[in-house]
């Protein structure tokens, strides 16, 4: 893998990237940050003269999606941080995406414009209304060419559907509905209807003191419009079938790994909380991330995952200090590659991990400005555990826990990955015919 671009750089809290998402073709990549902004990158078309420039992503458009708000009824500040972005399947020349903060989901449309209408009857060049008494004849406005402009416009605002914080949104394969999940409930929305949503899952106990479990992530099946999955803080996955009933409070399948009594500790429950769940492109498998591992589940086997990969098992002995500095609650995401053969997830010290499911090989790579120059090949990194320490190895104690890679995305077809390391976005690309994996 070689780095193609390091983008964004100012060290500013608002700049911290909070989500990364490729669109369905991979031509566009959207990031959201804590400041409520969405930045869209577009892949430059391949040019024959400079083969190297192929696949470079450049800023296409930037816009403010959410603003900080205040809920006066509940005396609650609503952060502008973008929690998730999801692209809609393209319906015409324009692109659309959903972005959400803790409470409000917005549908944005991104269009290109290279013509501008001029000669309106009722408004002047600046768009102000003309005095009607001066309008004595009619003219047809004409389109004049202008520089290409990317225009982003808000199409819908889906507000007031959630009492708790929205952690995920997912567009259904019927292209007509999407769902949004908060800590205790999942709502189903029609993409065209903003004033109505349907609650399909509600795990809120009658008495909040009985609360033992919250929803951490959810996703629709990529092909079957009736299936969706949600993960919980107890480490279980629930698959629901919307055909069976209007309310999916009862799951159809429960994926849960029996707890190993020998490993039981104070932290067992915290580290088993699922922070992300993703269906494979084929729809056959699900990928989950908990604090120390990534797991692959087969939809047909509920009892245990078919594969478990250790992301940073060396932290198991450090859980106590990770608990004290709150790192144990970090929510790492995970991603599939286009052919579902490789999985990727983030770790600390700006490391991210990849696991090849076929060869069972794994690799740790680092996303940092110092170690990666454009077009240089990334060197695998190793964290040394115990005695033997090789050159370039890093000891567990010197890992920087403030540098964490929570958000990652993999191009839907090619080996291009986007890594968000706090306020930096790295885009790495497979060398032509590289042997990486």
């Amino acid at each position, binding site marked *: 893998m070689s780095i193609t671009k390091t983008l964004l750089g100012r060290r500013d809290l608002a700049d911290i990237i909070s989500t990364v998402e490729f669109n369905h073709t991979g031509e566009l990549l959207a990031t959201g940050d804590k400041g409520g902004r969405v930045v869209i990158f577009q892949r430059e078309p391949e040019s024959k003269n400079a083969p190297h420039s192929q696949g470079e992503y450049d800023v296409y458009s930037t816009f403010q999606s959410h603003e900080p708000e205040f809920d006066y009824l509940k005396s609650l500040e609503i952060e502008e941080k973008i929690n998730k972005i999801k692209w809609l399947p393209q319906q015409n020349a324009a692109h659309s995406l959903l972005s959400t903060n803790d409470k409000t989901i917005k549908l944005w449309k991104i269009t290109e414009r290279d013509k501008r209408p001029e000669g309106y009857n009722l408004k002047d060049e600046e768009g102000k209304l003309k005095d009607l008494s001066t309008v004595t004849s009619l003219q047809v406005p*004409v389109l004049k060419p202008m520089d290409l402009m990317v225009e982003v*416009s808000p199409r819908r605002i889906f507000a007031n559907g959630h009492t708790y914080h929205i952690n995920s949104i997912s567009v259904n394969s019927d292209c007509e509905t999407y769902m949004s999940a908060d800590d205790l409930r999942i709502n189903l929305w029609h993409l065209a209807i903003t004033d109505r949503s*349907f*609650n399909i899952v509600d795990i809120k106990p009658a008495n909040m003191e009985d609360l033992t479990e919250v929803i951490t992530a959810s996703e629709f099946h990529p092909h079957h419009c009736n299936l969706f999955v949600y993960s919980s803080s107890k480490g279980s996955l629930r698959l629901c079938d919307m055909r069976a*009933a209007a309310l999916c409070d009862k799951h159809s399948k429960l994926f849960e790994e029996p707890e190993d009594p020998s490993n039981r500790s104070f932290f067992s429950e915290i580290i088993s909380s699922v922070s992300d769940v993703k269906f494979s492109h084929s729809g056959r498998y699900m990928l989950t991330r908990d604090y120390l591992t990534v797991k692959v589940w087969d939809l047909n086997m509920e009892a245990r995952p078919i594969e478990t990969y250790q992301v940073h098992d060396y932290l198991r002995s450090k859980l106590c200090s990770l608990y004290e500095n709150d790192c144990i609650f970090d929510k790492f995401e995970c991603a599939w590659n286009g052919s579902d053969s490789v999985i990727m997830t983030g770790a600390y010290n700006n490391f991210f991990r990849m696991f090849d499911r076929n060869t069972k090989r794994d690799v740790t790579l680092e996303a940092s400005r110092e170690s990666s120059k454009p077009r240089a090949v990334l060197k695998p990194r190793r964290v040394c555990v115990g005695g033997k320490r090789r050159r370039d190895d890093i000891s567990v104690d010197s890992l920087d826990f403030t540098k964490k890679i929570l958000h990652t995305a993999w191009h839907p077809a090619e080996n291009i990955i986007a890594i968000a390391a706090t306020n930096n976005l790295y885009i790495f690309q497979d060398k032509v015919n590289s042997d990486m994996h």
Partner: protein
Amino acid sequence: MNPCPCFFRLGKGRRGSIRFLSPPVFLSSDLQLLQWGSEGSLNHRDRNSTPQPLLNPRGGLLPCCPGAGRGRGLGAGREAVTSSRRRKNMAGASGLGTGPGAAGGDGDDSLYPIAVLIDELRNEDVQPPLENLATVEETVVRDKAVESLRQISQEHTPVALEAYFVPLVKRLASGDWFTSRTSACGLFSVCYPRASNAVKAEIRQQFRSLCSDDTPMVRRAAASKLGEFAKVLELDSVKSEIVPLFTNLASDEQDSVRLLAVEACVSIAQLLSQDDLETLVMPTLRQAAEDKSWRVRYMVADKFSELQKAMGPKITLNDLIPAFQNLLKDCEAEVRAAAAHKVKELGENLPIEDRETIIMNQILPYIKELVSDTNQHVKSALASVIMGLSTILGKENTIEHLLPLFLAQLKDECPEVRLNIISNLDCVNEVIGIRQLSQSLLPAIVELAEDAKWRVRLAIIEYMPLLAGQLGVEFFDEKLNSLCMAWLVDHVYAIREAATNNLMKLVQKFGTEWAQNTIVPKVLVMANDPNYLHRMTTLFCINALSEACGQEITTKQMLPIVLKMAGDQVANVRFNVAKSLQKIGPILDTNALQGEVKPVLQKLGQDEDMDVKYFAQEAISVVAQRLRKLDFPVKDSGEPSVPRADKNHFPRPRVPGEDTGKGPVYPLHGDTRDTLAQLEIAELVHFSQSRD
């Protein structure tokens, strides 16, 4: 297109009414539609948040547009954009024959609407405007464009249709984006009947390919137009082509497609003979009724009456009734509720000679179980129609079989169920008389009347006049009168308001004598209540009752009380006295007006409180007008000179920041210690939109 039809529970997370953070692109003012035609312009507006009441000040001009130039490019485009605006703003105005010339005369005025349209359409859209509009991503715009295209197609000659219209449909049907293909689905049926045979074959071919389109959106559009297309096809083609398409769509992998096929089933069934139905349609319908997805089964339940009519009595008896029984005991509550809604219609559509036996033997057992269903939506759906069965089953069956069910539902724990029964009492009254029910009715009513939810109380108040009429004065006085009086001192304003209106209706029903003996004394006693809200209720009651009670009672009993209250220490009461005097003025005679009302109003006109002064002066001018009219009775046109007092409407300019909602006077003057008053205002403002 059909948004997913069939959920009813709103997001549980939602509290109170829905707030829009910015104009919802979809449902807001009619004006918005204009902006859609020209994509992108919306965006400028949103960004700069410039206000857009472009048309509002001159909305009246708009009738110029429709009716003009129908059938050709621009004119038709106009139709597309303006038609929905017409629906709301100028219902009926389009029929007045106002062409563009009609508004002539004043130069810019007549240009205005056209200018708006030209600006909105711009030349890129003017070229083939509807074809463009039929491909935009906003469903509403597309649907309107298709609607207009369908109208235009009727204006084409068959030759022009094939030369221009059919190619357009083909272009849309083979468009790159699904938006144009979905639009095409709606256009096949209008060009098919008048096309030549060769073109017909092509059209059928294209429709076939859209039915198996890759995107579910197009398949949904095709499924929803399948029935309509089938109607214009030759019977042979229906059998050979539509039925296979229908079968395919009905087994689509997406349930959102399958459920639309159920709708198509109704239209297709109407075209086929009984034998064909049995072999071609029934297998698919049976499958739909047992579909894995509750949404498809819901659709079958929801369309049951139509299906029943289309399939005819024989299939109904053999197939549909058993299917219906299954739907009534479906595992999904939404489906049971939809089926329960159809119970009455099902009965009405059965052949008269057999329906009693069919319902008694095949449906009633299931209904009996639904009465104690676990889901309240199901029970209340049933409660809203079950009374209708009594007319079908006749007196004896009703008493023997239905009455126990009614009684059980009157005791149901869910207020909605009880309300639905009570609101349909008239059906059963015709068959067996309400007395049969009164024993159970009363406790049910009393309980609803004291329900903790004020909306429930409000709902039951609205049925009081009806109940009063059916139960008679005696029963009413004995059992219900006290309830009606209790509502007058409810702590929620909406209830007190409804209670005063209720009194008025009761007086209209039972007459003035009854009012004088039972209502008026009790109302007037409240004038001395320590709570100023209750004292005001007296005034509101007088406002409502004076007309129904007539001059004598008003002058002799009510007026003295009103006048006495002019000295109240709470300003709200005093200015409501002024308003009441204005309201009852027309009923009083000159002497009372001149001798009693006028001095009091003049005194109030000097009040230290500006609101009291304001309303007193308003009342004085109205009363003075009235006095003048009485002096010169020739001019009396019979038109009441008093403007309809509307307590929501305050004619004077509002102070900025002042709430313009109901009774802004409370926050101004309300005794701060009276927290109830404050609370209920909050409640009113908060829930004014939605009822839960």
